[in-house]
Structures are given as structure tokens and as C-alpha cells.
């Protein structure tokens, strides 16, 4: 009898099957994930998700008998008071004892298949085919920070980089090729010579052996154990290090005209952006700046939940953002993203200043700037663009990295987000101001 501990065997043997399964059901899963993301609360969007998908294409069919029809005999246990010849009313339809998803009579019912996606799988599918615009910072193309990467071997280098394994491998093959006598062979020969010398027998063989010994020891001196030819060094190349940190600025108008509903929309958008950025960058900082007629950097709770009264001067927020960038996030080291959410109000006198700041200071510093205008749920647009919309619109130009969208209801958040970051749109380089979300 053998007892074998298999617990340490490679885990996740089923992973390959799971990947095949996910690939197979990809279309249905993507649809389910999109739907799920609309309904679930934003806080746990990053957790795994239980989704259910229709069985189409996932059926494993086989020939089997229909659940009904024909003559059937059953033997069942637990008779209480039946006697031979009794009649029993048939159970109502649907009380099939077969149960499970095989039960539906013709297998045509829309049996959903429910299972849990891991967090990674969920986000993969959730953020699939979205791409960050300008992932490589333009200014940083000539990046100065580098990291050494292995790049094969070289015959020169510093002693610290000596690659012993390679060197010895070369040495061994050279010794074998040149038939360098092994130390053991020499010792053996020497011992035999000594034995013959002591015994004094067979002087003829002794002289042969001595000659042989001289020849071999001379050869072993000629063919060195390690030749400079054998030596190899590990080679490193210096690869420019991509910037793996990003900072995300959340700008929001918190003046009285912003309702809870609008803030909720804003929060959802910010969360999505955060998730997306944290998938792409190793480290993501978030800066919350809220403004009325004056702007302040605050923590998350204050940002979303505390109320403030006052007028609306957008340029203050931009100035505050500029200040934070100058203080803490040097442009050279950080990828900077900004999302601004507002209901579109601004003091008329401030419009020109805001446009100027945006175009001359903020946009050059940012990788990407998204402006989301939120509206009341049940109110139609009056057909008139808001102050801020009119202010920003002239700044939008093809190929630029300013985008603006309007959102009114929750379900639009995700489509608008996808619309902003989808690959195709990015490729076509038209960053035109869109109308209302689809």
C-alpha cells in the first residue's frame, strides 16, 4: 500500500477547462456582466460576481426519453396504506421528481446556468476592449529612469556578473573535446606505477606506464581546467522604465444645484474610472477636489456626502488642481487623469477664465480629461447647452484628449464610459463632443 500526498500538486488543474468554458460562453457572459454592472452597487463592483447565463450553446445534449408519455412502471418504497388495485391521482404538471435542469419536458425551457466569476475574470470581461488613450506619456518618451533586464550572455563583463553555470558548461565541453585526462585517471596511473616500483616486477611495463604518465600530465597542463575562452558573464540591458503610477483627479461641483441623484451618477463614473486605471497602473492615487465658488481638496467621504452652499466658479477647481499637481505630482513622474462632473452651471463671468485655464494649463498636463455633465433624471434638456458645455466645446478638437458627455440616468453611465474608452473610438482619433449618451 502506498500513501501519496497530492496536496502539493500544482493547483488550478481545472483552470484550462474553465478558460475553455469561459471562451465558449463568452458572448453570453459579456452580456450578463454588462447587465449585472448596471444593477449592482458601485462599491462592490470590483468583487467577484455571480452571474447567470442562458444555456444556449452550453447544453450537453443526449438522446433520452421525454418526461411524459407511454406506459411506465415504478417501484417505490414506503407504502403506507395502498393495496393492490388502488388508483392514485397523478400529481399536477411540473411535479417531476427528476428535478434539476433536465426536468423541463422538452429541454427547451430557458434554464439559466448560474456560476461565480472571480474578481479578475469579472473585471477582464467588464473592462474588455477598453483602452486608455495615450498610455505612454508623450513627454516621457525620453524617459530617464531605467531598469536592468537580462539580455543573454557576453564574453566580457565585470567579475560580479560572472555566470558560473555557463562558464563551467563551456569548460566541461572543451575539456571533453580536447580529451583532458581526468585527475582520477592520473591518480590511478600513479598508484600503479608506485606499486610496480615497490614490487620491482615487470620493469618493461613500468617504463611504458611512466612514459604514459608523463604524456598525460603534460597534456593536463596544456589543456587548462578553465580557459579564459570559457568565461561568460551575464549581460544586462537597461530598459527605460514605464511610469507605472497614475493620479486621478475627481472634480465635482457641490453647489446647491447638484442633487443627490447627480452626485450618485458622479460617484459611479469616478468609481469606474478608478477601477479602470487601477487595472492599468500599479499604483493609482486619487485626489478629490470639490468646488462651489471656491475649491478645496477633501477626502472621499466629505467629497460625496457633505453639503456646501455657495455660488459656482469652476475655474477655482482648476486652479486648485494645478496647485496640487505642482505640489505633489510632478508631471514627469505621474500619469495624470482628470474627470470633472458638474451640472453645467458656472458664473458667466468665469467662463473665459475657465476656458483659458483648461486649454493652457490643465490639458497640457493631463493624459486625459473627461467632462461629464449630469442632469436631473426626469427633466429633458431644454435644448440649450449649459454654460460650461458652451465654454468647453470650443476647446475640444480632433485628436485632443478632452472628451465630454452627458448623463442623466444610471443606466447611461456604463455605456458612456465604454463610449469614452472603447478601442475603436480611440483608434479613430475623433474626440468630438458627443451628444447625450446612447
Amino acid at each position, binding site marked *: 500500500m502506498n500513501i501519496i500526498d497530492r496536496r502539493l500538486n500544482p493547483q488550478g488543474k481545472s483552470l484550462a477547462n474553465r478558460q475553455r468554458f469561459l471562451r465558449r460562453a463568452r458572448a453570453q457572459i459579456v452580456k450578463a456582466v454588462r447587465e449585472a454592472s448596471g444593477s449592482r452597487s458601485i462599491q462592490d463592483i470590483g468583487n467577484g460576481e455571480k452571474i447567470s447565463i442562458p444555456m444556449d450553446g452550453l447544453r450537453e445534449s*443526449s438522446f433520452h426519453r421525454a418526461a411524459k408519455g407511454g406506459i411506465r412502471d415504478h417501484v417505490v418504497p414506503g407504502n403506507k396504506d395502498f393495496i393492490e388495485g388502488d388508483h392514485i391521482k397523478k400529481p399536477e404538471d411540473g411535479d417531476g421528481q427528476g428535478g434539476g435542469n433536465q426536468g423541463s419536458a*422538452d429541454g427547451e425551457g430557458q434554464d439559466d446556468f448560474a456560476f*461565480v466569476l472571480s474578481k479578475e475574470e469579472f473585471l477582464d470581461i467588464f473592462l474588455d476592449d477598453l483602452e486608455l488613450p495615450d498610455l505612454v506619456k508623450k513627454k516621457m518618451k525620453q524617459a530617464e529612469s531605467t531598469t536592468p533586464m537580462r539580455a543573454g550572455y557576453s564574453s566580457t563583463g565585470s567579475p560580479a556578473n560572472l555566470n558560473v553555470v555557463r562558464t563551467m558548461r563551456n569548460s566541461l565541453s572543451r575539456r571533453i573535446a580536447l580529451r583532458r585526462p581526468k585527475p582520477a585517471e592520473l591518480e590511478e596511473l600513479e598508484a600503479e606505477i608506485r606499486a610496480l616500483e615497490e614490487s620491482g616486477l615487470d620493469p618493461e611495463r613500468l617504463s611504458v606506464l611512466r612514459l604514459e604518465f608523463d604524456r598525460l600530465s603534460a597534456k593536463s597542463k596544456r589543456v587548462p581546467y578553465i580557459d579564459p575562452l570559457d568565461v561568460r558573464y551575464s549581460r544586462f540591458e537597461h530598459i527605460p522604465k514605464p511610469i507605472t503610477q497614475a493620479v486621478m483627479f475627481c472634480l465635482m461641483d457641490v453647489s446647491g444645484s447638484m442633487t443627490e441623484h447627480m452626485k450618485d451618477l458622479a460617484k459611479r463614473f469616478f468609481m469606474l474610472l478608478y477601477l479602470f486605471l487601477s487595472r492599468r497602473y500599479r499604483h493609482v492615487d486619487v485626489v478629490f477636489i470639490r468646488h462651489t465658488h471656491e475649491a478645496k481638496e477633501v477626502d472621499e467621504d466629505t467629497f460625496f456626502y457633505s453639503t456646501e452652499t455657495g455660488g459656482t466658479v469652476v475655474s477655482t477647481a482648476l486652479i486648485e488642481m494645478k496647485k496640487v499637481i505642482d505640489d505633489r505630482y510632478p508631471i514627469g513622474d505621474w500619469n495624470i487623469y482628470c474627470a470633472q462632473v458638474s451640472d453645467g452651471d458656472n458664473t458667466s463671468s468665469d467662463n473665459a477664465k475657465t476656458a483659458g485655464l483648461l486649454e493652457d494649463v490643465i490639458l497640457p498636463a493631463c493624459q486625459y480629461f473627461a467632462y461629464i455633465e449630469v442632469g436631473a433624471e426626469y427633466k429633458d434638456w431644454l435644448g440649450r447647452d449649459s454654460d460650461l458645455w458652451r465654454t468647453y466645446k470650443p476647446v475640444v478638437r480632433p485628436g485632443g484628449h478632452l472628451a465630454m458627455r452627458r448623463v442623466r440616468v444610471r443606466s447611461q453611465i456604463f455605456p458612456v464610459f465604454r463610449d469614452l474608452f472603447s478601442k475603436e473610438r480611440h483608434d479613430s482619433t475623433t474626440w468630438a463632443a458627443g451628444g447625450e449618451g446612447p
Partner: protein
Amino acid sequence: MNDSTPLFTGADWDFDKVARVYDAVEAIAKGEMGLVTYPNQIEVITAEQMLDAYSSIGMPLMYKHWSFGKHFAQDETLYRKGMRGLAYEIVINSSPCISYIMEENSMAMQTLVIAHAAFGHNHFFKNNGLFRQWTDAKGILDYMEFAKGYVAQCEERHGHQAVERVLDAAHALMSHGVHKYPRKRTPDLADEERRAAERNAYQEKMFNDLWRTVPKPAATRQGSQELAERKRRLGLPEENLLYFLEKMAPKLAPWQRELIRIVRKISQYFYPQKQTKMMNEGCATFTHYTIVNRMHELGLLSDGAMLEILHSHTSVVFQPDFDDRRYSGINPYALGFNMMSDIRRICEAPTQEDREWFPDFAGNGDPYGTLRQAWADYRDESFVLQYLSPALIRKMRLFKIHDVAENSEMEVTAIHNERGYREVRRSLARSYDIAHLETDIQIVDVDLAGDRRLIVHHLVDNGMLLAEAEAIRVLRHIANLWGYEVRLIEIESGTDAVLKTYEDVAPTTVM
């Protein structure tokens, strides 16, 4: 009670304890019960690995397919929610016989599992006639290794999708990929020549010119003779659909045939398990119950461990009544265990009734010998037919219901009384008969020289037709493998009346 000390105390297990318990179990299994087993290999695995083995039909080495991923997702969801516990063990019919035990089990459970799997199932695998005839315990692991490698290689060479299409189709036909009888050997050339010569000689000897003057049979007979010849050459009718497609489908590439063959081999390997599920589980349950009781008697098991084992044992052999919400058919563990315990009772303390019903072995005083013989020579159907006793029918209060689709009421046709015993027993046995359980589907004709349409018949038993939507999906798989149209006709067995004709299903993809 004996005064020897228990082999272990407490719930934790380690390899030492497992080895000690194994030796004690082996002594009882071999010494007292006379079990003969393959050498054992016990492997400890984690819950995740158990789930994994689950999802790939219990085989540790399995090729990759999405359906296993689907089952895994399903099982995992249920398991995580706590809706379903995991099996405590999985055992592979191989030599050495591999039993997987879970690391989460307590030591008492490991004891139970060792007795159950490493001796109960193992003995059954090694000795039952069906397994001996149909499976090659020594070769299966190597074959699975080959299959896994081969599928992976095909995926690399021909792409995931192409392999998936073939495997999907083959899986749909898996239960119809079994040879139910040993096939007759096809004669080789020398044989064929010898037989032709014999036939000629016979004809010459029997030659009578008078036959020439007898009117020729009608032309239709000629046609049917051709048909018969064609069928003979293709080996039709053929109920092993996978075998037929593998050998005869005109458009398949060699690697596709090999894939079908792999699925067919695996299906064949599991064929005995389907027919002996109740006996196999009964044998394992009876064995572990006997062994742990003996161990407890000998003082090798503490009372606490024994209680834990009994708790688990009773929930395994629990049989809810038909009107219980938990009822989902007859529990094979319960029926198997009850029947085998009953056989033991008949051997040791028979009543007059038992002596009348089972004159062969009632009161022979050798329960294990009697059981060993039953385990070796029977399958579920014949076992019930042979050994189900009136006492047990009364104890389980079995009764028979006759259900005709058109009637609004079902009829109770037999209960546990003198008149009913035989009828109940016959019906119960029939419900374990694989020939009755599985649909009888046969390929009956194909005109290779004509339109190559494949004609498939379903021989309908008692008017139970196929589930239509599913059948059409399977037909599509057959059509895809075959490469031409397929027609399914449902025919009443016995009368040959056509009950239902499906529309021809054309292939949807090129394999």
C-alpha cells in the same frame, strides 16, 4: 469489549495513523471477509482537487474540455454555498487501485473511507464479472495519459474550435458508444477464401439442374437482397453509433476518428459502472459497515470515532419514503446495503420463508462466501432478481405503480404481500436493466453509393418517445460527424409501426 487501545483518538489525522488504520482494516478485510483486491494506492487531495476530479467524470487524468469547466463551476457554486457537501472519496478502477481521500476528513472519516473505497470498491472492481470482461484496470491510466496528450496535441495542430466540435459531438453520443456484446471477429483473408471454397464445394455437390426451371423471385426480392448485402458489409444495424461513425463516416480526418475513438473507449470503460452502481455501492457500504463494527468490537476504534462513522453511515443509507419531500428515487446505497445485510441474515438466521425462497444458501452459515459469489457473478438487474427477499420488500414497503400516459390515474398493481412479491421484484429488477433504461438507438441503413443519408431508428419501448428538442440537437451532432443528412424514425418495438418521423437534419458545420 476487548481491552486493546484504540488506533487513534481525536479528529486529526496524519500519515502514520492512516498507515496503522490501513493495516487493521486490511487484516479484517482479507482475513475475515476474504476480500481479494488490487494493490492499493491512497492519495490525499484538497477540496479543490476533489472538485476538479468530480468535474471530469471522476478521472484524475482527463483531457481538456469546456464541459468539465462548466461542471466545475456548477459544483463549485453549490459547494461554496454549502448546498452540497463533497464526496469523501473517489476511487478509480485501476491497478493499483487509486483512492482519493480529502485532507478535510477527520481520522474517523479516513477510516471509513479506507474500508469503503480501498477494500469495498476495490474488491468489486477486481472480482465482478462485468469489470473483468470490459475493463482493463492495468491499462486505463496509461490510456488516459495518452488521450490527454493526444487531445492537447490536436488542439495545438488543428485549433481549439475544431477539436471542440468533434468532442462535443462525440460527447453527445457517449452513451451510445458502447459495445454491449463482444463483437464477432471479422474473418481474415485466408479464412474468407477457405469459406468461399467450402461454399463452392457444397454448391457443386448439391447442384441440381432442376432448380433452374423454378420461376425467379420477384424483382423486389432482388432489391432487398442488395439491401441485406449492403447492411452486412457495413455491419448494420449498429447500435454503437460512435463506432460506426468512427469507422464509416466518409469525411472525417484520421485525427478526428481518433478523438471519437478516445471518447468511445472512455464510455466503454464506464459501461460496467452504470450497470452495477447499486451493487458496487452496496458492496462498499456493506464492507465498511462490517469492518468498522469489527474494529470497534476489537477495541481498535474509540466510541467517539464509532459514533461519527455511524452518523455518516446512516445518512448515506437513508431512504426517504415516496411521499417524503427528500425522495428522489431509490437510494442505491440503501438498497444495496439492505440487500446485502439481508443476505447475511438469511445465511445466518433464516426463517421458514427464507428457506423456501432461497434454498441454495439459506442457513449455510457462510455469509461472506455467499456475498463474494454474488459480487462476482451479478449485475444490478440480475442481483435484484435473484436476491431481493420478501422480508426486505416488507421492510422497505416496496410497491409497484403502473402509469399509463392517457389515464388520469395511476394504478397500484402490486404491494408487499404474498401475491405481489414476485411482481415487485421483477419490476424493480427491470428498472435496473440497462437495456431498458437507455434508449435503443440504431443505425439501420445508409446508401453510400446514393445520397448517403443515414437512417437512424429508435426502437420505442412502451410508447416512451424521445425528448424532441434534445434529439434534434443530437441529430445535428451526428449529421456533422457523418457529413450528410440524417433521418431519425421512431419505431414501436415488436410491431414495427412507425410512431414518429423526424425531418432530415443536415450538417451545419464542416468538421
